[in-house]
């Protein structure tokens, strides 16, 4: 009997932070924190699973903007200096806490972690994580997928089909350039689906996507297996639905990461005692995160207790067992009802693991190891699941997102709703410029890149959630302003302001005349799955 599947789909993304960020800036540090907390440990986890011959696999979406930053030599050097500074801070903490039996060992642990990260990233991985992930994908431990070029929410671009297609086509071309093959899966930012995407994704050669539970539950006709079996859309895109229970266990306030024994994210030396970091790290007024954290979640907003790594590790084991046992129990019930093994699709932001939830990578590893030994369950990638259970119900998934209230309200909030009309207008103007542009035109390329960057979901998200809102507003103003000035100049055959030209291409595969054509940008798949 085929085992039921647990399909982890992790989405790794950061917006392109190279614009208007100086060395040592808070925004640049988002990338460095994600590298230290999530991306390097994720590569380590894959290496450990390979070393121990654990038959486990999961899917990982790597956004084109994140990949562009990961391969930027200047950012690699800046990361080296950042890690060096963290080791110096930790050295000082080790000396300062040497008589403290509780904090002393934690300071030493931080020091060891920073030094080890530097060793792993620069020596073991050659500062090229994309190559590490590519090797694991080739060995079948990982399925790599992409997402829209600048993390644009695709249903919001329906009225600008040229740019909807560009966001998909550039992402696939960038993925193919880095990993040798086009992806079968496509991470929809915010899991945002609309039936209008169906044909566009299919023509681009995309085989599968992941939607929130209600995208499947409200599909037409009604899917007989709910979110526990993928469905095939009328145009042939296969939609997997998020399993609601495993989502609750990991995402909700009362989920695993909120356990009082886990490390508290928000208590950080950089906020508690910013002066101690000043010689090594520049921090904004009021402090900023350093990655040195001494406290555990504990509960409530009162005084936090000191972190105990051994107790946290014990909770990881408990939560891994709870997760697998819970899925196994439901798999038995569902299989009896469905007459076929269910698939539990578990999509999460990759940065949840390690960064927001410090013990998350250990938990993921423990779950994958348990699944590898389980009689009734198996960790399987979505493509492997389709090869194992290829019979699907035909249904049109419902428009949905995994965002607030399951739909698009956050993108139409008063603070940022004004951008849609501007994006629509500039989209038409830039497409016209691209149609008549020489492939090497810096002006048209810069206008296209500014527009693509303005389409990113990250800026309005920052503004509407009031997290780095000023930076989000700044980036929107920069890209929309530069795009408009470039259009104004190029439409009149005037020389563009050099300040508006982007110094280096954001995407090596950007094909201006083809982009401007607006025809469906078909990407032929090399694996026989050509539409």
């Amino acid at each position: 009997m085929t085992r039921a599947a647990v399909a982890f789909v992790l989405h790794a993304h950061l917006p392109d932070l190279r614009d208007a960020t100086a060395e040592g800036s808070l925004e640049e540090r988002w990338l460095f924190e994600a590298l230290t907390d999530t991306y390097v440990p994720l590569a380590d986890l894959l290496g450990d699973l390979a070393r121990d011959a654990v038959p486990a696999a999961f899917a990982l979406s790597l956004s084109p903007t994140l990949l562009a930053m990961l391969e930027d030599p200047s950012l690699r050097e800046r990361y080296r200096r950042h890690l060096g500074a963290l080791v110096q801070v930790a050295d000082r903490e080790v000396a300062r806490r040497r008589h403290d039996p509780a904090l002393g060992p934690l300071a030493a642990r931080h020091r060891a972690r920073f030094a080890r990260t530097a060793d792993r990233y620069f020596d073991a991985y050659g500062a090229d994580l994309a190559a590490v992930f590519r090797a694991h994908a080739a060995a079948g431990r990982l399925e790599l997928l992409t997402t829209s070029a600048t993390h644009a929410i695709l249903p919001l671009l329906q009225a600008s089909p040229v740019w909807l297609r560009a966001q998909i086509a550039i992402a696939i071309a960038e993925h193919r350039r880095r990993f040798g093959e086009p992806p079968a899966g496509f991470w929809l930012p915010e899991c945002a689906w609309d039936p209008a995407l169906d044909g566009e994704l299919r023509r681009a050669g995309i085989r599968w996507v992941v939607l929130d539970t209600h995208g499947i539950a409200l599909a037409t006709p009604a899917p007989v297996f709910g979110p526990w079996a993928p469905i095939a859309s009328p145009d042939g895109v296969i939609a997997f639905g998020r399993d609601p229970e495993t989502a609750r266990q990991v995402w909700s306030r009362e989920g695993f990461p909120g356990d009082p024994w886990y490390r508290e994210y928000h208590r950080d030396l950089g906020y508690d005692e910013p002066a101690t970091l000043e010689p090594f790290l520049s921090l904004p007024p009021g402090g900023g995160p350093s990655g040195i954290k001494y406290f555990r979640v504990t509960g409530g907003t009162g005084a936090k207790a000191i972190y105990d790594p051994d107790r946290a590790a014990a909770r990881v084991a408990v939560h891994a067992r709870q997760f697998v046992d819970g899925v196994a129990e439901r798999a038995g019930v569902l299989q009896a009802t469905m007459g076929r093994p269910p698939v539990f699709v578990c999509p999460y932001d990759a940065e949840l693991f390690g960064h927001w939830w410090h013990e998350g990578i250990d938990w993921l590893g423990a779950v994958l190891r348990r699944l590898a030994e389980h009689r009734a369950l198996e960790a399987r990638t979505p493509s492997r699941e389709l090869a194992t259970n290829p019979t699907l119900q035909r249904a049109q998934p419902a428009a949905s997102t995994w965002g607030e209230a399951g739909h698009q309200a956050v993108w139409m909030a008063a603070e940022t709703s004004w951008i849609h009309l501007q994006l629509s207008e500039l989209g038409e103007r830039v497409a016209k410029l691209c149609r008549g542009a020489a492939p090497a035109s810096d002006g048209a390329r810069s206008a296209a890149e500014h527009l693509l960057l303005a389409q990113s979901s990250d800026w309005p998200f920052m503004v509407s959630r009031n997290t780095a809102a000023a930076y989000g507003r700044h980036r929107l103003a920069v890209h929309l302003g530069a795009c408009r000035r470039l259009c104004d100049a190029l439409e009149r055959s005037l020389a563009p302001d050099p300040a508006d030209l982007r110094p280096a291409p954001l995407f090596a595969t950007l094909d201006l005349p083809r982009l401007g054509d607006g025809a469906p940008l078909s990407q032929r798949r090399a694996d026989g799955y050509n539409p």
Partner: protein
Amino acid sequence: MSDRALLLARDPWHLFAAWDVEPATRLRALRSLGRRAVAALAAVRLVRDDGPQPPIDLPPGAGERVLDAVPGRSHVLEVGLRLRDGSFVALVRSPPASTPPATVSPDTTVTWVHAAAPTTPIDVRWSGRRVRRVRLVPRGGPSSHVHT
């Protein structure tokens, strides 16, 4: 900015509408209407797949609005003028936007399809160098699968 109207589904019950109508466009319309233009008001209306909905008058300078909608239906936004006789003159129309369904589909038709497994590319190597890439085709050939 040229004349433009945009309609996006916010959720099953609401649509987000944004528009920009150049003063020259409005002026041309008013001129062509002649006397009928007297007391004309700026307004928007939704045209659903079952017909136009009553216009909504706009305050001066309005450029966007959240409009009530019906789940699972297709809508078009019209931005224009509401005339004294109750008729509506559209100046700009948006592309259509469909609201998502709010309930489980009553359609219980079940159609099964087969997701054809992609063939696996295999590198043929000679002295470590890739010389050719070949593909394994499923037994019976690709035509034995119903591609989804």
